[in-house]
């Protein structure tokens, strides 16, 4: 009973939840320069003078309330909607005036309603852009099979099927494969997982993050769901009406430091909790915790407990794995040996788990604290709620400092500009 089963150990969240690298270090892949869309001359623009950089290999999420112009913005990039003014620079090349169809063949495009061609087989659907680009049949077929494999659909089974034979989740996978067919450097995704049930959506998101870790595309991703934005985004742009950027930053910083009331309202309650997804247990400075081994005597245990500031002792089994929690009542209970009293340790997290996982373990633990274990299940430390409070405070301070530094820089730049023009 005291053996911790692996099921109790929380695995780290899906790839992408914790990123240490700064996405803006990579070169700029898409540069929007004062891009504007006006439908009715004289009326308010749908997208107002938007300047935005998307860096190579990042997922930039555009998120905002309905009608804020996020989809319009996405469609301006592949010129499904022609901008009224401004420039679009794609990998260093001004594409504002090149042939729109040629541009679109270089950009993967995934939409919520997928739009698979029902009269074509899955293979024909996936091979659409390669055929437009004039690839020969054998190269197209090879690529198609490769992509079906990549999105987890066995080519032998699905190649010759028609879209009507697929489930919603499978259809969306084919949609992603089709967008990736000609290996475009950039993908535009407009609420791609919006039309599937929550369980399938979660699975598709995780699969897609794994896929992205492999293919490293530059992705602009539109959603209205802040949770999806936080999960998928390397960076998030929160948009208000007319696609004005309210805040553009990493999810962790946006969650710890919303710049204004609009962002605060939009990310909603629980943003602090969501922020815990972005820190790993391994990054914590874990203080010592009183532990005893199976061969520790009762007197010794009593002494350790009295001498510590903690209410619980952690008993390790003979292989050094957490076994039971003991408080003074348990230690005083002489009817049974120490390793048979006290609640069994169930909630354990690995060192590479996120703080969110740790918090969950803490809440379910009978001692109100989460036990950290190494990969082999041996004891590594104990995390208490105070430590999380500290981390949350630190994240907020860091984010605030980041914005203060940013403002100071801007102010300095403005002064320099003013001095330059004077």
């Amino acid at each position, binding site marked *: 009973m005291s053996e911790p089963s692996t099921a109790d150990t929380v695995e780290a969240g899906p790839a992408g939840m914790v990123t240490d690298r700064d996405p803006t270090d990579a070169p700029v892949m898409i540069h929007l320069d004062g891009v504007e869309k006006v439908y009715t001359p004289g009326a308010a623009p749908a997208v107002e003078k938007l300047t935005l950089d998307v860096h190579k290999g990042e997922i930039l999420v555009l998120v905002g309330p309905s009608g804020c112009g996020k989809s319009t913005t996405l469609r301006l990039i592949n010129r*499904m909607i022609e901008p009224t003014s401004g420039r679009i620079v794609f990998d260093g090349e001004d594409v504002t005036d090149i042939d729109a169809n040629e541009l*679109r063949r270089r950009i993967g495009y995934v*939409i919520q309603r997928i739009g*698979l*061609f*029902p009269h074509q087989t899955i293979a024909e659907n996936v091979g659409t852009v390669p055929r*437009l680009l004039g690839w020969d049949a054998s190269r197209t077929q090879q690529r198609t099979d490769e992509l079906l494999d990549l999105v987890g659909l066995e080519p032998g089974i699905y190649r010759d099927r*028609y*879209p009507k034979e697929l489930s919603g989740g499978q259809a969306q996978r084919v949609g992603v494969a089709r967008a990736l067919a000609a290996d475009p450097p950039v993908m535009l995704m407009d609420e791609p997982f919006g039309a599937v049930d929550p369980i399938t959506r979660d699975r598709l998101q995780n699969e897609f993050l794994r896929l992205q870790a492999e293919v490293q595309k530059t992705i602009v991703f539109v959603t209205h769901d802040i949770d999806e934005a936080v999960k998928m985004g390397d960076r998030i742009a929160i948009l208000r009406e007319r696609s004005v950027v309210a805040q553009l930053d990493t999810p962790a910083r946006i969650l710890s430091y919303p710049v204004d009331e609009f962002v605060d309202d939009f990310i909603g309650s629980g943003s602090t909790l969501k922020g815990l997804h972005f820190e790993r247990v391994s990054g914590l400075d874990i203080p010592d915790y009183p532990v005893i081994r199976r061969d520790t005597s009762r007197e010794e245990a009593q002494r350790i407990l009295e001498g510590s500031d903690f209410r619980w002792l952690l008993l390790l089994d003979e292989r050094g794995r957490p076994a039971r929690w003991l408080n003074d009542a348990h230690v005083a209970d002489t009817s049974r040996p120490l390793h048979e009293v006290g609640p069994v340790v169930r909630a354990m997290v690995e060192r590479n788990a996120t703080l969110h996982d740790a918090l969950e373990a803490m809440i379910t633990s009978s001692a109100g604290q989460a036990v950290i274990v190494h990969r082999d299940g041996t004891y590594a430390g104990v995390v208490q709620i105070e430590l999380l409070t500290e981390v949350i405070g630190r994240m907020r301070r860091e984010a605030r400092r980041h914005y203060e530094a940013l403002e100071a820089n801007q102010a300095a730049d403005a002064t320099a500009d003013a001095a330059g023009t004077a």
Partner: protein
Amino acid sequence: MDGVRSLVEFIGGNTSGIVERTTEHLVIVLGVMLAATLFSVFLGIAVQHRPFAKQLSLGTAGVMLTIPSLALFAIFIPLVGIGNRPAQIALFLYAILPILRNTVTGLDAVDPAIVEAAQGMGMGQVQQLFRVRIPLAWPVIIAGIRVSTQLITGVAAIAVLVGGGGLGSYIQRGLTSLGNPFSIERVWTGTIFIIVLALVLDVVLGFVGKRTTSPGIR
């Protein structure tokens, strides 16, 4: 029973004539249908996105169907003389509406998300039309072609009145010689073979439609 026996007798004695008339009839129908299909499908594609042109062309094609066939056939005699020509023009005008309407309806019914995906992958207007929109609208278009074919095969019987050929000549000869031997049998022969021809054409078109429609949208 005597009627049936004399009908069989008449048909048996006139097989070569019937084959000839049926072939004439078929040629008229096929020619008209080919022209009407090309014209109506192109017109449908052209007007589908233009509400005014769409209403105008559908309205006009509708009016054509209300003109009494006898009159419509005769109207063209001063322009093109007698024979098959005025008949073909009149039949062509009748054939437009079902094909035009179904082309427009079929194209309208294509899911906008599919067209958006096609456009988003870099298909031009023409590629979108031929690779996506027409293949998807095709089952509806071919249903229109079938309706027109049925209609034209029946109405083509009147061609004989403006000097044309076809199975209508049996009906006409029968009607003008009522009371004489085999007059009713002539009418029946014309009618029956028109019906048979229409059914055969419908079966053929049904088969063609099935073969040219992707299994994915059947």
